C-alpha cells in the first residue's frame, strides 16, 4: 500500500504494476506479535483436536510459553536497538516498531502472562464433583441454572477457549499502539475487542451479570468503533491516505505537489476536524475517559474478575499507546485544536471518576471508577505535548497496570458462598481475619491513591511534572484536588478492612495456588520497586519515549 500512495497520480495503473512484486515483510521486528497470534491459532487447533482432559494443561502451557517468548523477543528487540536507532516503520508502512511500541508491548505481554495465572487459577472455586474448576463458566452456551449447565458441571467441563481468546486479545493489543496507519489501528482494535467481549460473558458465578456486561460492552464497543471507522473515512477523505506520516504531512501542509483532488480536500478542514474528533472518541472510549466511560463500571463489575483485571490493565495500556502515537505523530499540527478538548476530557475524567467513586459499595465498581480517574491523570500527561509527556505516560501505564492486575487478583481471593464477595460491607474487618491479604490490598490502594514510596506516587509526579512543563498547570491543580477526593474512598476501604468489626457472616479468604499468589506478588514487588527505586524504569521510559516518524 505504501506503493499506492507513494504517487497519488494514476492509482489503478500502479496497483497492477506493484502488485506483481512480493512486498518485503520485516519478520524479525514483527516476531513478538506473530508469535502470540500464531500461538493463538495453534491454541484453536488444540481446542479442536486435543482431548478435553489435556486441553487445560496444553492451553496454559502454550499461552504461557507464547507470551514468555513474545516478551523475550520484545526485550531482545529492545536490546538490539530496535527501540532507538534501529526503530523503523515495517510491514509496508502499516506498523512502526519503535520505543513506545516495544515498551508497551513488553508491558502488555507481562500483564498478560500474569493474567494467564489468574485465568488458570483453580484453587479458589470449591471443588465441583471432584473436579477443580476455574472462575469461568462450565459451558457458556448453556442457560444459567439450566440442566445443560448442571450436566456440564457434572462432567467437569471447563471453558479452555479463554486462552486462545486471551492470546488473540493480546495480539491485537500489541498491534494497537504500533499501528502506523488508521486501517491497522481499526483492525487491531477489533482484534482485541472481540475476544474481550466474549471473555466478559464467561463468568462461572453470577452469569446474568456477566452476560449483561458482555452485551453492554459489545454494543457500546461496536457503536464506538463505528464512530472510529467513520472518522477514519473522513480523515482519509481529507488526506487521501490513512498512513500516519502522510496524514501528518498533509495536516502540516508540507506535502509536495498535491494532486488536484487532494488539494481540494485539503482545503476542507471540517473533514479533518470531524474525523479527528470521531477517531479520538473511539480511542477515548477504550481508555474509559468521561464522557465515554459509562460502560466501564458495569463491564468491570460483571466480567469475571481475572478478565476484568486483564482488561483494565492491558486495554488502557494499548489504547493510550495508540492515542499517544496518533496525537504525537499524526496530529501535532492540530494540537491547538485538540488540546483544549483533551483538557476538558482530562478534567472531567479526573473529577467525575473521583467523585462518583466516593459512594460506591462494590469493590469492582469502585476500582472501575478509580480507573476512570486514572485515565484522567494519564490524559494530563498526554496533553503535555513534550518528550517528558510521552515517557511519563509510559511509566504511569507500567505502574498502573501492575497495581490493577494485583488488586483484582486480590479481589478474586475474598469469597463467600455466592462466589467472590465484592460488596464492600463484606470486607469489614478483613484486616483482623487475614492481615496479610488486607495489607497487600492496602498497598495497592495506597498506590492508586498515589502515596509516596509506591509506584503510583512516582507516576503521578511524573505526569504532573510533564503537564506543568507543558503549560498545563491548571490540570495539575485539578489533578491534585481530585486525588485528594480520590484518597477518601481508598482510605474508606482501608478503614473498613482494619478498623471495623468483622461481619459475623463475613467472607473467607481462599488460599490460592502459586498462580494467583505469583500474580499478586509480582504486583506488590513492582509497586514497591517502582515506588522506591524508580530510576531504572524512568530511564527506560525516557529512552523509549521517542516515536519513529
Amino acid at each position, binding site marked *: 500500500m505504501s506503493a499506492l500512495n507513494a504517487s497519488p497520480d494514476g492509482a489503478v495503473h500502479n496497483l497492477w504494476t506493484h502488485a506483481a512484486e512480493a512486498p518485503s515483510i520485516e519478520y524479525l521486528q514483527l516476531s513478538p506479535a506473530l508469535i502470540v497470534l500464531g500461538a493463538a491459532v495453534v491454541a484453536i487447533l488444540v481446542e479442536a483436536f486435543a482431548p478435553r482432559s489435556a486441553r487445560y494443561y496444553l492451553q496454559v502451557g502454550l499461552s504461557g510459553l507464547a507470551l514468555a517468548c513474545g516478551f523475550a523477543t520484545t526485550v531482545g528487540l529492545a536490546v538490539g536497538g530496535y527501540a532507538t536507532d534501529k526503530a523503523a516503520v515495517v510491514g509496508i508502512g502499516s506498523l512502526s516498531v519503535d520505543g513506545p511500541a516495544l515498551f508497551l508491548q513488553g508491558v502488555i505481554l507481562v500483564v498478560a502472562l500474569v493474567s494467564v495465572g489468574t485465568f488458570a487459577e483453580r484453587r479458589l472455586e470449591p471443588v465441583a464433583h471432584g473436579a477443580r474448576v476455574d472462575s469461568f463458566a462450565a459451558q457458556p452456551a448453556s442457560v444459567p441454572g439450566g440442566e445443560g449447565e448442571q450436566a456440564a458441571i457434572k462432567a467437569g467441563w471447563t471453558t479452555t477457549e479463554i486462552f486462545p481468546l486471551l492470546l488473540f486479545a493480546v495480539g491485537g493489543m500489541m498491534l494497537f499502539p504500533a499501528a502506523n496507519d488508521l486501517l491497522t489501528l481499526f483492525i487491531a482494535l477489533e482484534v482485541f475487542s472481540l475476544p474481550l467481549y466474549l471473555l466478559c460473558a464467561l463468568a462461572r458465578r453470577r452469569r446474568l451479570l456477566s452476560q449483561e456486561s458482555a452485551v453492554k460492552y459489545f454494543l457500546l464497543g461496536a457503536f464506538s468503533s463505528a464512530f472510529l471507522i467513520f472518522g477514519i473515512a473522513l480523515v482519509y477523505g481529507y488526506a487521501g491516505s490513512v498512513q500516519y506520516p502522510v496524514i501528518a504531512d498533509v495536516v502540516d501542509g508540507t506535502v509536495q505537489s498535491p494532486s488536484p483532488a487532494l488539494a481540494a480536500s485539503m482545503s476542507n478542514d471540517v473533514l479533518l476536524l470531524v474525523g479527528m474528533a470521531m477517531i479520538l472518541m473511539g480511542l477515548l472510549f477504550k481508555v474509559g475517559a468521561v464522557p465515554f466511560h459509562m460502560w466501564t463500571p458495569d463491564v468491570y463489575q460483571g466480567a469475571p474478575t481475572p478478565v476484568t483485571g486483564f482488561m483494565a490493565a492491558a486495554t488502557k495500556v494499548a489504547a493510550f499507546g495508540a492515542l499517544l502515537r496518533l496525537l504525537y505523530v499524526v496530529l501535532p499540527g492540530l494540537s491547538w485544536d485538540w488540546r483544549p478538548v483533551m483538557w476538558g476530557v482530562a478534567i472531567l475524567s479526573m473529577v467525575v471518576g473521583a467523585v462518583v467513586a466516593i459512594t460506591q459499595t462494590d469493590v469492582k465498581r469502585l476500582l472501575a471508577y478509580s480507573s476512570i480517574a486514572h485515565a484522567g491523570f494519564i490524559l494530563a500527561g498526554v496533553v503535555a505535548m513534550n518528550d517528558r509527556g510521552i515517557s511519563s505516560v509510559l511509566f504511569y501505564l507500567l505502574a498502573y497496570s501492575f497495581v490493577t492486575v494485583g488488586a483484582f487478583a486480590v479481589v478474586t481471593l475474598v469469597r463467600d458462598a455466592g462466589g467472590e464477595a465484592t460488596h464492600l460491607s463484606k470486607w469489614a474487618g478483613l484486616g483482623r481475619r487475614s*492481615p496479610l491479604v488486607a495489607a497487600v490490598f492496602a498497598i495497592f490502594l495506597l498506590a492508586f491513591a498515589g502515596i*509516596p514510596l509506591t509506584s503510583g506516587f512516582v507516576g503521578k509526579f511524573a505526569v504532573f*511534572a510533564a503537564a506543568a512543563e507543558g503549560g498545563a498547570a491548571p490540570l495539575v491543580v485539578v489533578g491534585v484536588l481530585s486525588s485528594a477526593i480520590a484518597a477518601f474512598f481508598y482510605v474508606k476501604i482501608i478503614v473498613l478492612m482494619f478498623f471495623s468489626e468483622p461481619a459475623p457472616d463475613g467472607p473467607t479468604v481462599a488460599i490460592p495456588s502459586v498462580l494467583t499468589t505469583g500474580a499478586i506478588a509480582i504486583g506488590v514487588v513492582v509497586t514497591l520497586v517502582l515506588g522506591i527505586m524508580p530510576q531504572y524504569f524512568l530511564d527506560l521510559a525516557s529512552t523509549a519515549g521517542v516515536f519513529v516518524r
Partner: protein
Amino acid sequence: MADMSFPLLTATAVLPALGAVATAAVPAARRTVAKWLAFAVSLGTLALALVVAMRFDPGGDRYQLTESRSWIADFGVRYELGVDGIGVAMIALTAVLIPFVIAAGWNDADPVEGEKTGRSWRPTQGFFALILMVEAMVIISFAATDVFLFYVFFEAMLIPMYFLIGGFGDRAHSRGEEEGAKQRSYAAVKFLLYNLAGGLVMLAAVVGLYVVTADQLGEGTFSLQQIAEARASGELTMGTNAERMLFLGFFIAFAIKAPLWPLHTWLPNAMGESTSPVAVLITAVVDKVGTFAMLRFCLGLFPEASAWATPAVIALALISIIYGALLAIGQRDIKRLVAYASISHFGFIVLGIFAMTSQGQGGATLYMVFHGISTAALMLVAGFLISRRGSRLIADYGGVQKTAPVLAGTFLVGGLATLSLPGLAPFISEFLVLVGTFSRYPVAGIVATAGIVLAAVYVLLLYQRTMTGPVEKPEIAKMPDLRPREIAVVAPLIAMLIFFGLFPKPLTEIVNPAVEHTMSDVRKTDPETAQSDAEAAK
C-alpha cells in the same frame, strides 16, 4: 562536600525501620518479646541520635554529616541528608521521646479477649512496629536537605500514624465501646485526609518548584543547597507571583500539620481518640515536622514570599494562641483540652518563626523541643489517670490527689510546664519567642503575652477539677497511685524539664548558629535597641 564516611544519619533512620520490621515479625504469642525488642531498638536509636549530636560541631558548616546519593535522576531528586543545629535538636527530641512513648504504651495494644481474629492478627506487634516506623520516617524528614526526599517521608509518615490513631484508640470511651470505635475511625480518616489534602497541595508546589528550576537551571533540582546557591548567584530568580504561589503551597501543608488556626480541627479528634502515647507521638513529634519545615523550607526556599506573608501568618499565629487557649478552657475532655493547649503552643512556635528575629526563631526551635517534653509529661500522666478511671471527661474526676498524690504531683508539674512556669524548660522558649516577637512587632508580642495568663487558667482549672476537692466518686476513692513503670516514664521527663529550665545552654549552643543561617536566608537582622541607637548617635 558529602563526606562518604559512615552514613550516620541514614543509620539513625534505618535502625528503627529495621526494628519495625523485626517487631512486626515477632510471633503472635510472644507479645512481651516484641515490646522489649521495640524498646531496645528505640534506645539504640537514641544512642545513635546522641552520637549525631556529639559529632555535630556548632562552629562548623551549616549542614553536617551530609550524605548525598543520586536517587531519581530523572526528576533531579537526590538522597541528600544533612543536619543543622535545628535538625540535630529535633532528631534528638524524637529519639528521646520514642522510648517513653513505647514504655508508656506498654499495655495499650494488648489484644482484647474474645475478639474473633485470624491467627496472624498481631495488634501488639503492629503497634510498636508502627511507632518505630513513624520514628524512622520523622528522622529522615528532619534530616532531608532535598525537598522531594522530605516530601516523600512527610507524606508517607501519615500512613503509620493513621493506623496508630485508627487502630489503637482508648478502649474506654465515655459513650461506650461501639461509639468509641466510630469516633476513632472518624478521627483517623479526618487526620489522614486533612493532612493528605495539605500534602497534595504541597505536591503541586513541589512540581512547580521542579518546573521553575528545570526551566531556569537547565535541569530540575530539589537540593536546598543548590537552589540556595543558584538564588544567591542570581542564576535562579523566581517571579514574585510564582514564588508566592509556591510558598503558599508549602505553607498550607505545614500549617495543617502544625496545626495553625483555622486548619486545626483534626488535632482534637486525633489526640482525643488515640491512646495517650500516640497522642504524644502526634503532637510532640509528628506535628513538629510541620513547624520545622516552615523554618527550613518556607523561609529557606522562598524568603521574599515569607516576608510578604509574615503579617498574615503572625495574625493567624496570634489567633491560634488565644483561640486555642480559650477553647482549652472550654473543654470537658482532658485529652481534647491538652490538644487545644497544643494548638495554642503551636501558635507560639509559628509566631517565633515568623518574627524573624534570632530570639524568636531560636526560641521557636527550643519551643519545639521543650513543648515536646512537657506535653509528653502532661499527656502521659493524663493517660495513666484515664486508664485508671476509664473516662476522659473532666467531670468524672475530683480529689484524685488525696488518693494518688504522686500522680497528682507529676500531673501538676506537667501542667506547670505547660503554662511555662519559670524554672521549667518551656518558660525559656516561650519567653524568647515573646521577646523576639516583641522586639519586631510590639503589639503582637503583647497580645501573645495574654496567652500566658490564659494558659494559667486552663491548666489550673484542669488541675482543680480533676485533682482537688473532696473525693466523691468510689472509683477515685480506690484509685491506685502511679506504678513503678509509670514513675520511671514520668520522672526522667520531669528531670529534663527542670534541667533544661536551668541549663538550656547545650541546646542554645547548637541552635544559635543554625538560626543565624536562617536569618541570613531571609536577609534579616535583629532590630536595633534604643541603647545602640544612642551609642550610634554618639
